[in-house]
């Protein structure tokens, strides 16, 4: 599991392509927010950050990965399939009748912990898990991937205060900071200002990272995981919504835009 930064980069490139391919077959999936989080999930699952066992998705000794930005995590489908949570062939059936791989992931998918179609729920539930693990004396840790947009939901801040109060240093928030929600740039809607300063003021340990440098994300997460600071940690991963897709990347309405099939085919090098 000691992948090099180059290996993580190559893996990220593959996941990016597979995510595009899934969206090509299932345009109901949210593409832009699933491309901003590729390297975050690659670092978690291929970088030796998370302890997991694909054959036993709910094994007691696993680290918990709560994917709060549910619909912006379609890139997890190829990752979970590759790791053996389910058969790779399932990727052909996303959004098809009878498939468990929907337009928005639910925990009927092996590897998903919680229900996160509705935003702003993951961090609070993860906080309860982190408290439970501490009280059980478990060494397992809890990672939460949330979008910056969903931090507008006030329940997150109830959880942020609670986690600091209880010194939940087994709780690690990763913010996919793509700075765009449905109708535009979050700075133009309700700005988080200096999010790191806010989280620090709330009692968290906070770092920034380039969210598209999987090696750097991995290094930061491993460092946060191994240091018991008595504080919950946040990693603010600056990302680009719709990264790598011309016309989509960083577009204010990227969340609801679907690139044309021929654009995806061009990017994937498919013969048309």
């Amino acid at each position, binding site marked *: 599991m000691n992948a090099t930064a180059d290996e993580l980069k190559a893996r990220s490139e593959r996941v990016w392509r597979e995510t595009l391919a899934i969206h090509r077959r299932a345009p109901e999936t949210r593409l832009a927010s699933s491309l901003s989080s590729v390297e975050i999930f690659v670092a978690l699952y291929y970088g030796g950050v998370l302890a997991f066992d694909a054959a036993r998705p709910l094994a007691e000794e696993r680290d918990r990965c709560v994917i709060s930005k549910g619909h912006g995590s379609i890139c997890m489908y190829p990752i979970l399939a590759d790791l053996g949570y389910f058969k790779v062939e399932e990727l052909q059936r996303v959004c098809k009748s009878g498939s468990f791989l929907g337009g928005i992931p639910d925990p009927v998918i092996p590897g998903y912990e919680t229900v996160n179609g509705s935003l702003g729920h993951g961090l609070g*539930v993860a906080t309860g898990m982190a*408290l439970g693990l501490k009280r059980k004396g478990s060494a397992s840790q809890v990672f939460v991937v949330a979008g910056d947009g969903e931090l507008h939901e006030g*329940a997150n801040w109830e959880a942020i205060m609670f986690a600091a109060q209880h010194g939940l240093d087994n709780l690690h928030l990763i913010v996919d900071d793509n700075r765009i929600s449905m109708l535009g740039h979050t700075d133009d809607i309700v700005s988080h200002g200096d999010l790191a300063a806010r989280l620090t003021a709330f009692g968290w340990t906070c770092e920034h990272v380039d969210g598209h440098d999987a090696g750097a994300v991995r290094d930061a997460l491993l460092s946060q995981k191994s240091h018991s600071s008595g504080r919950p940690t946040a990693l603010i991963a600056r990302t680009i919504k719709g990264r790598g897709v011309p016309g989509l990347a960083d577009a204010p309405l990227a969340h609801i835009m679907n690139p044309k099939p021929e654009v995806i085919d061009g990017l994937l090098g498919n013969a048309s």
Partner: protein
Amino acid sequence: MTMKPLAMRDAFLERLWRAMQDDPKLFIVSADFGSPVLDKIRADHADRFVNVGIAEQNLINVSAGLALEGYTVFAYAIAPFITMRCYEQTRVSLALLSEIRPMNVNLVGVGAGYSYVVSGPTHQCYEDITLMRAMPNMRVLSPSDHVSAAALFDACVASRGPKYLRFDAQVLPVVYDAGAPSAEHGFYVHRRGERVCLVATGYMLHTARAAAARLAAEDGLDVGVIDLFDLTRFSAEGLARELAAYRGVVTLEEGFRGRGGLDALLLDFVASHGTRQEVLNLGVEGGYRFELGTRQELHEQVGIGPEAVLRRIRAFVASRLPT
């Protein structure tokens, strides 16, 4: 010997406090809401108590997370807040998630109906039966005294899935001094009678019993009285059998009438079981009010006080259930 009445919450939490001594999986989460017995739990089981503060959304989320880690969780707050402030947290991370992952979270809400008498409509709770029953896997339990409230504890521990217990905030007279009703049936027959059966839940069981006693004494009419304390998983077969003896059914609830509460439950039940009774629904009429008064005065104003109930049952019997 008459039993000393207790607050429902204290009787229930006393069971929890005792059980926590032997069962390390029991956990209680409060949204900054207490009780004398909770003080004992805080002192004796500090490692399995947590106060999230005035933060009901986080109350539900933290409870869900603890339940996912294997704890049997009791989430404790004021009834309108634990039901309505955090409805989507309950829907997403309790109702939906428990369909996929094993969880046991019990929402304990104190302040059913008008029981916070002088606190006004923010603290009173007349919508909870409707809202909580709207989630098809939510078990809704509505006891009428501290004995029946405490008796629900074992059922809460033994069965998974989300549950909502609506407790009265006042100390109510003991109804079940001869022993608690079986949680399994979900209802209890207090008296059998003729022509009409009163089906009540929570505080209104007391009103129903008093009305039945007066109808017997003053009108020579023996009516049935049933306490429907499980508003979701009662024995349908058993209830249909009980109701078969009557031509009329009266529902009594401390919730808005005609808005999907006990009244809707019984109308649907009668329709779908083909028992064809005439039905009178008694519930809160006229919407939100800010007047101060005793609980009885408030009840009379909205049509569910002892006198209003008696008057309306008499009119119902005379007009729709002639001999």
